[in-house]
C-alpha cells in the first residue's frame, strides 16, 4: 500500500516536473508546478509530516503559486521565443546534469542500504504540537528573524512594484 502510494505520487511529481521544464508557455509551467507541490504534500504525509504537508498546500500551492500566476497574467508573457545562446550552457549543461544526477543517486544508494524503510505512521513526531513546541523553544531566534525577513520582503515588494507617484 505504501509502495503503491509512493509510486503513484512520485511518478505524478516527476511527470509534472518534466512538464514544468518542457512547456513553452509559463502558465502551463505554473499549473504543472502546482501539481508537483500537491504530490509532494502526499509524500510528506507518508513520511509523517502532517503540519508540513498542510503548510505546503496552503502556503506554497495556495499562495505562492497563485502569486506566480497573477504575475504571469500581469506581464502578459507569451510563449517563449528562442533567442540568444550561450556556448557554455550548450556544451557543458547536459553532461554536467547527467554527472550530477548520477553521482548523487549513486551515493544515495550506497549510503542508505535497503534495510531502512519508511512506512506510514512510522514517525509520529511531526504534529503541529511538536512543531510548535520546537519552534517556540529551540528555534525561537530563527523564528523571530524570519518574521523580520518577511516584513522586509513585504516592504521590498511594495517599493519595487509600485507606480511612480507624480
Amino acid at each position, binding site marked *: 500500500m505504501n509502495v503503491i502510494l509512493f509510486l503513484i505520487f512520485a511518478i505524478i511529481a516527476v511527470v509534472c516536473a518534466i512538464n514544468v521544464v518542457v512547456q513553452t508557455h509559463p502558465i502551463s509551467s505554473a499549473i504543472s508546478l502546482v501539481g508537483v507541490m500537491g504530490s509532494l504534500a502526499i509524500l510528506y504525509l507518508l513520511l509523517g509530516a502532517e503540519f508540513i504537508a498542510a503548510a505546503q498546500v496552503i502556503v506554497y500551492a495556495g499562495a505562492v503559486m497563485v502569486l506566480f500566476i497573477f504575475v504571469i497574467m500581469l506581464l502578459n508573457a507569451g510563449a517563449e521565443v528562442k533567442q540568444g545562446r550561450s556556448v*557554455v550552457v550548450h556544451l557543458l549543461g547536459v553532461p554536467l546534469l547527467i554527472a*550530477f544526477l548520477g*553521482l548523487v543517486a549513486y551515493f544515495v544508494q*550506497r549510503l542508505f542500504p535497503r534495510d531502512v524503510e519508511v512506512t506510514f505512521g512510522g514517525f509520529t513526531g511531526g504534529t503541529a504540537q511538536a512543531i510548535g513546541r520546537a519552534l517556540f523553544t529551540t528555534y525561537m531566534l530563527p523564528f523571530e528573524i524570519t518574521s523580520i525577513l518577511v516584513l522586509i520582503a513585504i516592504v521590498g515588494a511594495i517599493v519595487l512594484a509600485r507606480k511612480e507617484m507624480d
Partner: protein
Amino acid sequence: MQLWLIPIFPLAGFLINGLFGRRFSKALVSVFGIGSVALSFAWALKTLLALAPLNTAYSEHYFTWIQSGAFQVNWDFSVDRLTAVMLMVVTGIGSLIHIYSVGYMAHEHGPNHGGFYRFFAYLNLFMFFMLTLVLGANYLILFIGWEGVGLCSYLLIGFYFDKKFATDAGNKAFIVNRIGDFGFSLAMFLIFKTFGSLDFGTVFRQAPAASEAVLTTIGLLLLLGATGKSAQIPLYVWLPDAMAGPTPVSALIHAATMVTAGVYMCARSFPIFTHAPAAMDTIAIIGIATAFFAATIGMAQNDIKKVFAYSTVSQLGYMFVGVGCGAFSAGVYHLMTHAFFKALLFLGSGSVIHALSGEQDMRNMGGLRTKIPITFWTMMCAAVAIAGVPFTSGFFSKDAILFAANHHAPWMYWVGTLTAGITAFYVFRAMFMTFFGRYRGNAHPHESPALMTGPLIVLAILSLGGGFLFKIPEFLGSLFPTLEAPEDVMLMVISSAAGLLGILIAYVMYVVKPGTADSIAGSLGGLYKLVLNKYFVDEAYDATVVKPVVNGSRVVLWRGADAGLIDGTVNGIGTAARAVGGVLRQMQSGNIRSYATWVLFGSVLLIVAMSLSGGLR
C-alpha cells in the same frame, strides 16, 4: 702613553675645519690645520722619547672591535722602531707641508677662498688615516688606514672638481688602487685562514711554521696591494695623472707618505716574506723593472711635475728592490731620505709654478736661478741628494740598497746603477731647463713668501744632512734579520760615478749646447715618441682592460641581464597576469545561465572531491 692622541689631533682638525671651516677666516683655518698636525708631531716625539730605547714593541689595546665566531679583531696600536721612523717622517714632513700649503693655497679662486678650508680638512683627514695605518697592530687596522688614504688621495687629486681632467685623475687613482686592494683583501683572507688571526704578533709568530706555498701566495697578494698603493708595475699608471692635484698634495701624498705605505707594509710583513723567497724575488724584480722603466719615461717629459712623478715611481722601485733583496732597513732608509728630497723637489716645483703664476711646462721656463734664488738653491740640494752625490742623504740610502742588490743578484746592481745615472740625468735636465739659460716664458717671476720658503730650507738641510743625522740602518738593524751585504768600496765608486756622469751629460745637453736635446730627439724619432708617450701603457690598458669591461657591462650586463632578463621577467609576469586575466574574463559573459552552469560544475567537482578523499563514508 695615549698613542691614540697621535691620530686624533688631525681627526679633530678635520672635523673642525670640515664642519665649521666655511665660516672661518683663512688664518683660523690655518691655525687648526697646522696646529693639529704640529700637535701630533709633538705628541709622537714625546711618546717616542718616553719609550726610548724602544727595544721591544709597545702596544696599547683599546677595545675589541669585531668578535664573530673565531674571528676577532682588536683595535690596538703598537709602536716599535719601524713605526717610530714612519711616525716621524709622516708627522714631521706633514707639518712642513701644511705650513707650506698655507702660502701656496692663499690665492685660490672661487668661493670660501677657493675651498681653503676644504683643502686643510682633507689634508688633516689624510694625516689621520696615514697615522692609523702606521700605528695599527693588525692587518685590518692597517687596511682601514690604507683605504682611508686612498679616499683622501681621491678627494685631493680631484680638489679642483670643476676640471674634468682632475676628477678623471682622481677616479683613475681610486680605481687602480682598488685593484691592488683586492689583492690585499685576498691576502688578509688567506692570512686569517692560515693563522686564525690578523694580529701582527700572532701571525708573525706562527709564520715560520706555515707552508712555503701558502706564504708565497700571501706574499704575492700583499705585493699586488703594494703595487697599487706604491705605484709599481703594473699599477703605477695613476701616479703621473695624480699630478692634477695641488702641488702640496703631490708632495705629501704622492711622494712622502701615502705611496710609501706599500713599502711599509712589506717591511712590516718581513716574517712572511723572509720565509717565501719566491715572493721576495718577485718584489725585487718588479722593483728594479719599475725603477728603470719609470726613469726612462722621466727623461722625455716636459711638465715639471710629471718628471718628478715618474721619479717617484722610480725611487719607489728602489725601495722595493731593497725590501726584495732582504735589506729591509735599507728600503726604509731610502723611504725616509726620499721623503726629504722628493718632498723638497715637489714643493720647490710648486714654488716655481707659483712664481710663474701657474706655468708648468719646462720649455717655457729658464734662467730662473737669479729670480727665485731660495727656491733654486734648496732644489739644488734635493737634486744632488737624489742623484746620489757622495755624502748626501740619498747617497747613503741608495748605496745601501745597491749593496744588497749586488749581493742578491749582480745584474740588479748594474741595472740599478744605470738607473741611478738616468735619474741624475733627468733630475738635472729638469733643473737646467728650469733655472739656467734664458727665460723663455711670459710671466713675471717672483720669489715665494716665507711660509713657502721656510719649509724648503728645512727640507734642504735634511736632504743634505739626513744621512748623518739619522743612522737608520743601525736603528732598525735590531728589528730585521741581518743581511750579510759586504760594503764594497768599488761598488760605491761606480754608482757615484754613474750619478756624476748623468749630471755631466745633462749639463752638456742643456747648458753648454742647448740644442743638443732637440736634435737627438729628432734623430731618434720613433723611440723618442714612444718614451714621450709613456710607452703607450695607458692606451694599452684602455684597449685591453677598460674598453672590454665597459662594453661588456653595457651590452651583456645592462642590456642583456638587467633590462632583458630581470626587467623582462618582472614585466613578463605582469604581462602573463594580464593575459590570464584576459582569458578568465571570458567567464564574465553577463549571461546568467552560464553562471549557473559554472555553479553546477563546481558542485559536481565538490562531490567528486569529497568522495575521493573519503568524506562520503
